[in-house]
């Protein structure tokens, strides 16, 4: 049996303690190290690794504040750990106490190892409190039940890792039993389920492995952290943390508490109202493990490796059959224990919620796809229930793989979780080939599945197996061979049908009569279909649905390399930023479109509003193009109307100036109010407008760029203040339009005399006129033409509207051309266009 407990040197533990907690490492870095399998050195083939339990404690039971903050310096989770130890002692003392106040023989107080004090005598009522009493409230009943439960647990604990001598130790078994008993007592809905013992055992082992006797002369903090007296309590704390994530996979009945809270009934508690519960929920209880397993196979795997999914699905593999053990034990039966521990290192570090475990299942399935895909039901199930040991690296790659295969699983699971696409699936397969020597080619099934007579006129069907076509004689003599199957080969519908029947047949234990009948069916149907000339042939090669050809990325990186996490995160961040930007734009568009020019009395104001709406529509169309993916390089300027964009730049500049001004403690009595701060509801009256204008005047005049002068805000246009550069020439060149008093325009402000388009565009409606200071020399976007947005429809009312607009005086062509030379090419169509109004926002 060897010595049951071998532990590393105290010094070794100390070194690792210092490495973890006193080297200035932050948790994020430690997690990364665990994820990369770099946390511990020389772990190959060793079940016990010094320091592992310390890292697990850090990852799993660290206090709440540490959970999210990756750059906090790693520190032993004292508070939580001490609380857990205290809880464990208190709870166990309480639960293990018989109703007469005594304890079972051999029980010692956790943490001290002393014999428990015999606290209380039995209750006074011997009628009830008496081991032999048959009274319903006899506390001994509960006690006997708990003894029974511990017996059940011990039965499994005794069978825990039979090949590891450590677990044959009676003391260890007793502690494991206590922990499991305490857990199941605290979680009555789940209780004790087989498998928990194997989840606990490695945790306990690791804690004990790192434990330090209290009498040694080492660092007292280390001694406290790894106290041998508290091994069980610490293991309990770790186990509880793990079960927080994995406990759902042990659930086997509807949580009683959930049912009770969901449906309070006025009936006395002994009345069973299960029927009512069912009626309300109308959904049969599905154990979470079944749901999780289904998710793995029917959703995740399907999205990542459709070919493998199809093979498993058509064979009739039910995912819970293998999923239950994979997930409940966290892969300790699928991988060698020491490898599983490496996997746990990464899993605990990355995802205490254990959602990643589902993706580890996917990665494990993909890793053995070559075995699964060509196999039949029985063979598939055998592989799934007896997961092939290690990686079949026998392909000749003798050099040690640069990465532990369990660590690789974690990494692949993360990658797949982040982007569950067939492309990533392929990259995982490629990675398995490069690192583990697993060929990417799925081997052909041994027994040829398709019994078809070679026919003339048969279109080129490519089977994955070269010897797929058999001679007629062979086929005739081989009715028994009907059970071979080839999941990946494309088949006609009749064949698929027959094959499905066969597969079902095997999985259902169907008898020979059926088999023969079906193989007859299989032989006949294709002929039949060919006779009809409708043989549904798949024109594609077997793996067409799952292209093996690597999709070459633009970068230099080899194609099998999955994208790194940071890349993905960056991409996600970019998408989020874009979303926010688009949301911003759309809210501006909505605001603008909601403007009601009916409230504006004068034509100029109305036109301003209309022009804005026009711009808003253009922006909206642009947003549409972005969202549809037809636009790749987003021009920010097109997201907002010129005016709005300008206003925002202006605002930013003003704010900056204001901040500077404030810091310089100038004598300005009122800091400039950013235009955007005017709430939509407020309708600034003339004075208000004037006042804001007053505020801005100095800036405008002192500023070197003329168009920056803010405009008085028209009464109705609450959101974007009018731009000053546009209206004056309009009002000047269209004298027929009376200017309203509420719209006080600085008629001859020098700031508006931009020598470009602004002063020379008196033509038609404002929205037909698209140049303005957009093209002004000081604008950074002066040479960016505003391409007219592609609108899907032109509403009739728009053309009517356009007709009406054409009554306005047109600008002299020469003027127009001379001023818009730079941008005329792309803009020349614009003024001629009838205004689009797909949303009907322009009246």
């Amino acid at each position, binding site marked *: 049996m060897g010595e049951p407990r071998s532990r590393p040197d105290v010094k070794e533990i100390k070194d690792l303690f210092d490495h973890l907690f006193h080297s200035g490492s932050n948790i994020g870095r430690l997690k990364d190290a665990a994820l990369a399998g770099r946390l511990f050195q020389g772990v190959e083939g060793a079940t016990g690794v010094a320091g592992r339990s310390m890292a697990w404690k850090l990852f799993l039971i660290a206090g709440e504040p540490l959970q999210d903050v990756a750059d906090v310096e790693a520190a032993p989770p004292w508070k939580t750990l001490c609380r857990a130890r205290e809880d464990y002692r208190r709870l166990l003392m309480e639960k293990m106490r018989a109703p007469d106040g005594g304890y079972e023989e051999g029980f010692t107080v956790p943490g001290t190892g002393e014999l428990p004090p015999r606290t209380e005598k039995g209750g006074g009522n011997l009628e009830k409190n008496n081991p032999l009493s048959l009274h319903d409230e006899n506390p001994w009943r509960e006690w006997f039940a708990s003894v029974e439960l511990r017996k059940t647990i011990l039965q499994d604990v005794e069978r825990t890792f039979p090949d590891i001598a450590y677990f044959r130790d009676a003391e260890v078994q007793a502690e494991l039993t206590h922990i499991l008993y305490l857990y199941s007592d605290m979680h009555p809905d789940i209780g004790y389920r087989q498998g928990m013992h*194997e989840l606990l055992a490695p945790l306990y082992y690791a804690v004990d492995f790192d434990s330090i006797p209290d009498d040694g002369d080492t660092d007292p903090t280390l001694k406290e952290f790894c106290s041998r007296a508290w091994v069980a309590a610490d293991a309990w704390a770790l186990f509880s943390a793990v079960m927080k994530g994995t406990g759902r996979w042990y659930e086997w009945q509807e949580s009683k508490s959930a049912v009770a809270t969901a449906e309070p009934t006025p009936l006395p508690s002994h009345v069973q109202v299960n029927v009512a519960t069912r009626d309300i929920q109308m959904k049969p209880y599905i154990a979470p493990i079944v749901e999780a397993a289904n998710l793995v196979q029917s959703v995740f795997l399907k999205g990542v490796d459709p070919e493998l999914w199809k093979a498993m699905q058509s064979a009739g593999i039910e995912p819970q059959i293998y999923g239950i053990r994979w997930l*409940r034990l966290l892969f300790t039966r699928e991988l060698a224990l020491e490898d599983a521990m490496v996997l746990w290192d990464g899993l605990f570090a990355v995802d205490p919620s254990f959602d990643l475990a589902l993706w580890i299942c996917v990665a494990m399935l993909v890793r053995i796809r070559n075995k699964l895909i060509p196999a039949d039901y029985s063979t598939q199930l055998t592989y799934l229930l007896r997961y092939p040991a290690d990686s079949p690296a026998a392909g000749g790659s003798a050099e040690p793989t640069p990465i532990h295969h369990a660590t690789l699983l974690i990494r692949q699971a993360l990658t797949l979780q982040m982007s569950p696409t067939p492309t990533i699936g392929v990259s995982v397969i490629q990675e398995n080939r490069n690192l583990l020597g697993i060929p990417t080619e799925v081997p052909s099934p041994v027994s040829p599945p398709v019994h078809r007579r070679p026919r003339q006129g048969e279109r080129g069907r490519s089977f994955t197996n070269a010897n797929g076509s058999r001679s007629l004689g062979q086929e005739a003599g081989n009715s028994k061979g009907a059970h071979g199957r080839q999941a990946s080969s494309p088949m006609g519908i009749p064949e698929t049908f027959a094959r499905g029947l066969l597969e079902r047949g095997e999985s259902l234990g169907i008898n020979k*009569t059926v088999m023969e009948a079906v193989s007859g069916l299989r032989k006949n149907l294709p002929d039949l279909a060919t006779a009809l000339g409708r043989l549904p042939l798949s024109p594609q090669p077997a793996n067409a649905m799952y292209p093996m050809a690597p999709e070459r990325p633009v970068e230099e990186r080899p194609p099998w390399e999955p994208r790194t996490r940071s890349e993905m995160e960056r991409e996600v961040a970019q998408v989020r930023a874009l979303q926010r930007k688009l949301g911003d734009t759309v809210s501006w568009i909505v605001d603008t479109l909601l403007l009601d020019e009916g409230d504006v009395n004068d034509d100029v104001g109305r036109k301003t509003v209309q022009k804005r709406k026009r711009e808003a529509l253009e922006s909206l169309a642009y947003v549409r193009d972005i969202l549809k993916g037809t636009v790749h390089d987003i021009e920010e300027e097109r997201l907002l109307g010129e005016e709005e964009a300008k206003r925002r730049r202006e605002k930013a500049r003003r704010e900056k100036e204001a901040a500077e001004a404030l810091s310089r403690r100038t004598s300005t009595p009122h800091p400039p109010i950013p235009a955007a701060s005017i709430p939509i509801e407020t309708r600034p009256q003339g004075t208000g407008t004037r006042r804001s204008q007053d505020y801005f005047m100095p800036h405008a005049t002192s500023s070197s760029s003329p168009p920056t002068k803010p405009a008085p805000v028209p009464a109705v246009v609450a959101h974007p203040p009018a731009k000053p550069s546009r209206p004056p020439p309009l009002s000047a060149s269209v004298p027929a339009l009376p200017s309203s008093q509420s719209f006080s325009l600085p008629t001859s402000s020098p700031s508006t005399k931009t020598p470009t388009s602004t002063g020379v565009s008196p033509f038609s409606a404002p929205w037909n006129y698209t140049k303005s200071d957009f093209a002004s020399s000081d604008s950074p976007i002066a040479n960016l033409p505003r391409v007219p947005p592609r609108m899907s429809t032109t509403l009739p009312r728009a053309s009517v509207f356009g007709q009406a607009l054409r009554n306005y005086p047109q600008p002299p062509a020469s003027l127009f051309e001379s001023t818009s030379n730079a941008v005329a090419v792309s803009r020349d169509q614009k003024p001629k266009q009838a205004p689009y109004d797909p949303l009907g926002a322009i009246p």
Partner: protein
Amino acid sequence: MTEQSNFDYLFKVVLIGDSGVGKSNLLSRFTRNEFNLETKSTIGVEFATRSINVEGKTLKAQIWDTAGQERYRAITAAYYRGAVGALLVYDISKHATYVNVTRWLKELRDHADSNIVIMLVGNKSDLKHLRAVPTEEAKAFAAENGLSFIETSALDASNVESAFQTILTDIYRIVSSKSLEQSEDPIKPTSGDTIQVSHSVDQNQSQGGKCC
């Protein structure tokens, strides 16, 4: 793999019974001729196949072994689906496991095909000095409930072969004599129906297959 297609009949047989009665060892003894005194508890399902010959026919047995504690909903449906035989195992040295046989029978009645062939198996017959369940009592119980009965020892391999042989032969007799009656259960393999299918296909073919 070629061996796999080399059989005449395929039967799914499940092993049920309390935790620790030796189901997994019965399975390993029968399929691999292995016995392990210290086996891990079965979590979920184990699975193995073996082919035997009965009256010149090759019967392939697909034997499913489940966790004794797993008589709950999580995998029950998948476990019993398509099973044509069940070995209900108890431990002759632990009376409680024999008492629970009734519960297992109820479970079978609830979840398995009604025509499933059941055999009561008293395992660990090598533990003669610890016997807690008299053979006669179990035999009588089996007769009462229409089960066949055998005592086995996976440890010394006695009767293990015979137990599987017996149940597989029973199933084979029933299937080959087509007395496994058709039931409403669509999953259940039936013979009459399928013969019709093949006939109809032949007819279709002779007619030029207008149905497809």
